[in-house]
């Protein structure tokens, strides 16, 4: 079975948009000119999948962006204190939902796809390509014209 990379082009952005609009109440736009470079303290939320395809989806953004996402998701004031644990939990769930949305959009051909529990790491100069994959799709988005985040999908066809 061959999974055309073209199938995923567009799907990643659509999936991210759906999650941001319905669950986070923030608008995101494909960023030809990113508002920010993501080089400060960053968060990397990823979820791996196995099955017909194997690989990983990640969201990569700076701490201020992650905090804005988490406070919006929780419906709390941006100036309120929010723990790093809550921020990580929120970003992990964003990765989970974007992956779910991708899956529902490309059901045909990748019916059997088991996803992992999301994991989130923080640090400086993290690389967003933590896992191997022959194919990589990256989408950089601006969030509410203020923050920048990057989604990447790495995958390869299983050998089985």
């Amino acid at each position, binding site marked *: 079975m061959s999974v055309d990379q073209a199938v995923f082009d567009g799907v990643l952005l659509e999936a991210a948009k759906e*999650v941001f609009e319905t669950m986070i109440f923030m608008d995101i736009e494909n960023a030809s000119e990113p508002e920010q470079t993501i080089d400060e303290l960053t968060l990397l939320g990823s979820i791996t999948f196995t099955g017909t395809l194997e690989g990983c989806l990640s969201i990569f953004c700076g701490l201020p962006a992650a905090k804005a996402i988490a406070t919006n998701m929780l419906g709390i004031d941006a100036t309120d204190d929010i723990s790093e644990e809550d921020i990580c*939990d929120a970003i992990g769930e964003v990765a989970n939902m974007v992956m*779910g949305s991708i*899956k*529902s959009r490309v059901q045909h051909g990748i*019916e059997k796809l088991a996803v992992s529990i999301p994991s989130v790491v923080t640090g400086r100069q993290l690389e967003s390509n933590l896992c191997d994959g022959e194919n990589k799709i990256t989408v950089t988005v601006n969030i509410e014209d203020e923050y920048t985040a990057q989604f990447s999908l790495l995958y390869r066809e299983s050998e089985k």
Partner: protein
Amino acid sequence: MAKSLMIVDDSATMRKIIMRTVRMSGLEFSRTEEAGNGNEALEKLNAEPVEIMLCDINMPEMSGSELVKKVRELPSCDDTKIVMVSTESSQEIIDDLLANGANGYITKPFTPEKFQEKLAPFMN
């Protein structure tokens, strides 16, 4: 009479979002409980059953599918309606869950309207 509700999800953020979305849907519950994993859910259900349980699938230690099977073994939860709330959208998995005792399914991301539509039948 208003029903009791339990939200089971390993993500604290997601439990809060589900709670908020339930409120936005206009549905009212007499009592709401939360559990962060399957064991905590079983413990709380053993102490006091609920009428409606919203249950995640992708959870560490005990998956939502396992939890559904275990809840169905509890005689006190015979009448509990279990609605899965998950990013999982494969029909095969959904059919399997429904065959094993789940009563409904809501996919993430979701809207208050979706909760209203899927939970209203269990509110009487």
